[in-house]
């Protein structure tokens, strides 16, 4: 398994992401944003978290024009799997590769803490190792994580099993930290090969550091 991890100026989660996939036995490679191609033997492209281009204008707005994004779009069009984490999710929505948009958190605070998430759909490569209704404990760290989609778009997300994860408390009751529509924490495209989420599974790989629930999530891509 070969994982390519994108790096823009301002990305800061690429090495955590590399660590996570290495721990799962994958081969990893950092791909600089000025590169123009994704190696054909790549099994997964991760758009890692951080603050690409300092979040200028809007989070992810400038990164979507980096040369590598054209290659990522082509790679995804051919069915290649793409995962956007945090800023990566913002970049993928800005690039219109995923539906919706991410706004400033409802209470305007930067949120950095562990949060529980509920698995809403698992008929996809990302969450197939988990069961619908499972609760995982994963760190969140974002200022612009308030997921917005209009009513029609939301209905289409639910109808097509595109809602991956929602925010909840330890017992699975809805608990919305940032104002996201329907407490949505992550979604995928209709074809189920492009995934995006605000929480950081790559930061939940060691029990000693609070949680290793990220393993079961990222493992889905391996088999």
């Amino acid at each position, binding site marked *: 398994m070969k994982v390519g991890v994108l790096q823009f100026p301002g990305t800061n989660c690429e090495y955590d992401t590399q660590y996570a996939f290495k721990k799962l036995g994958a081969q990893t490679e950092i791909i600089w944003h000025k590169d123009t191609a994704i190696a054909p033997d790549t099994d997964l492209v991760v758009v890692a978290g951080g603050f690409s281009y300092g979040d200028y*204008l*809007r989070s992810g*707005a*400038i990164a979507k*024009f980096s040369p590598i994004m054209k290659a990522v779009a082509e790679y995804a069009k051919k069915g290649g799997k793409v995962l956007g984490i945090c800023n990566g999710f913002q970049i993928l*929505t*800005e690039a219109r590769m995923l539906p*919706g*948009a991410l*706004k*400033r*958190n*409802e*209470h*305007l605070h930067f949120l950095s803490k562990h949060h529980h998430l509920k698995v809403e759909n698992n008929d996809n490569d990302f969450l197939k190792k988990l069961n619908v209704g499972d609760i995982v404990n994963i760190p969140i760290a974002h200022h612009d994580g*308030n997921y*917005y*989609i209009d009513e029609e778009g939301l209905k289409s997300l639910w109808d097509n099993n595109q809602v991956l994860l929602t925010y909840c408390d330890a017992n699975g009751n809805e608990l919305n930290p940032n*104002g996201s529509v329907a407490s949505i924490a992550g979604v995928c495209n209709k074809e189920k090969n492009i995934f995006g989420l605000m929480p950081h599974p790559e930061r939940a790989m060691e029990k000693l550091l609070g949680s290793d629930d990220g393993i079961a999530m990222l493992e889905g891509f391996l088999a």
Partner: protein
Amino acid sequence: MKAIVNVFLKPGVLDSQGKAVHHALSSLHFENVKDVRVGKQIVLQLDEENIEKAKKDVETMCEELLANTVIEDYTIEIEK
């Protein structure tokens, strides 16, 4: 030529910053404020003589970069 682009969240999309500013104004006893919307203004200096061409170009800039039309509306003013 100068183009002034104003970008605001669409009506119906909750403007948390506007709400916070409204709240702050209320605590300063400006009780006649009914609503606050926070947006951004982008001012472009254009090397362009043709107003129609300038308008069209700036509109494309808005659609592609300056606004995220999923959540934002924009207006364009052109000044000579």
